[in-house]
């Protein structure tokens, strides 16, 4: 068991990035990679759903969710879509490169809430990355939950991430996996339709289900609607939000959404905590 440092060790400067070395790069789609990195110093424990501020020296930093298994903090993964300066630079790194990471930050997925209940996970596109650690953690403690169901949607088959994991989980009786894509050319062979279409069909007990959702905001809205329609209690429905971040410490206010700071109070929220805030366009 490697030695780990508790995330809130008081002596560590929370704004200083620690060096990590890129060990493996996995191309997920044409614009998404997963970087596996190893710490140059002692690894830091994290919980499923937390994020890091990932720093490319000379370019800048971006908030990126941790997409690896919390049981192995000595090998940390981040899954990144190239959309701006930092994420493009991260997509262009080569094995052996050194990056800076500070974190982990934020409130993760409430797996304890799902104890003794059905655990349903709904992911859209790259949204599978932030829930992947929760899936791994749940499978490692399988006896704590009743059913575990994973509903995955992507824009097209080529936009599906973590296909190796999906294949592995699909053949694992401990988890019930359903994959769909928004559209596909004939021959794909799987389901076609938005991920919310799966919600009325997948076997789980809506009264006794805890649901974790991650994807584009519009997808989370529709997912929440479909889940509530099925009878899921919104108090047991959780979403993860993205807002522009700077300090990630709850001090600068960049990530503010009404009264909440996404970096400090989230990024995972119970649906009733944020649904009205998200309706207010100016927030």
């Amino acid at each position, binding site marked *: 068991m490697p030695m780990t440092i508790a995330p809130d060790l008081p002596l560590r400067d929370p704004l200083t990035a620690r060096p990590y070395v890129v060990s493996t790069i996995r191309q997920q789609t044409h*614009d998404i990679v997963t970087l596996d990195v190893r710490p140059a110093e002692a690894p830091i424990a994290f919980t499923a759903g937390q994020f890091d501020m990932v720093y490319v020296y000379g370019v800048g930093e971006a908030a990126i969710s941790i997409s690896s298994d919390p049981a192995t903090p000595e090998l940390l993964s981040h899954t990144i879509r190239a*959309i701006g300066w930092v994420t493009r630079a991260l997509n262009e790194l080569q094995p052996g490169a050194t990056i800076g990471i500070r974190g982990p930050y934020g409130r993760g997925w409430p797996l304890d809430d799902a104890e003794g209940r059905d655990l349903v996970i709904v992911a859209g596109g790259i949204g599978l990355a932030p829930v992947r650690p929760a899936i791994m953690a749940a499978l490692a403690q399988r006896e704590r939950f009743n059913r575990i169901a994973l509903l995955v949607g992507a824009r097209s088959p080529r936009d599906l991430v973590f296909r190796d994991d999906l294949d592995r989980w699909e053949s694992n009786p401990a988890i019930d996996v359903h994959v769909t894509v928004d559209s596909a050319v004939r021959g794909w062979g799987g389901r076609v339709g938005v991920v919310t279409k799966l919600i009325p069909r997948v076997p789980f007990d809506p009264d006794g289900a805890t649901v974790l959702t991650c994807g584009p*905001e519009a997808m989370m809205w529709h997912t929440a609607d479909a889940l509530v329609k099925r009878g899921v209690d919104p108090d047991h429905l959780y979403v993860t939000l993205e807002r522009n971040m700077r300090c990630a410490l709850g001090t600068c206010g960049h990530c503010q959404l009404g009264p909440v700071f996404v970096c400090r109070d989230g990024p995972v929220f119970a649906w009733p905590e944020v649904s009205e805030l998200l309706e207010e366009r100016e927030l």
Partner: protein
Amino acid sequence: MNRPTDPPALPARNARALPTGDVHAVVARLAEHPFLAGISREDLERLAEGGAVVECDADRYAFRQGGPGESFYLLLDGDVDLEVAGAGTPLVLESLHAGDALGWSWLFPPHRWAFDAHCRTPVRAIALDARHLRALIDADPVLGLELTRRVAELVADRLRHARLQIVSGHAHDHRA
């Protein structure tokens, strides 16, 4: 798909009717189909008139874009892809599976299908006679409203899904 009495929507080689026994076999299937959950036995019997259990072979079309909407299909087994044909391989917009209802063009003029329905696997479905259903909707406002409401839900669902497809795609393009 083909029914025993009506002219088939497609050449008969693309689909074949099962020997259905009688209307009771259709009613029994209708009673189990989620689309008609909660409809009384008596109303199911009225809906089933002229209906049949039909089959479509894999890699055949149940109906083609522009073809007449003569039947309302309720899927029992198998997978059907709603496709648009283009220059290359057809694009699948939605896949439908056991428990799904296939299309609503039979209800609204000009009663022509908007997409191709391609059977990805062997498919079994209940085919209800569209002309009979439309007459029933006109003649019985209570059953007519209930049926129309259920079809409207299908349409609303499809619209919601299409919007979600658009905004997800837009979010993706915007970020990409």
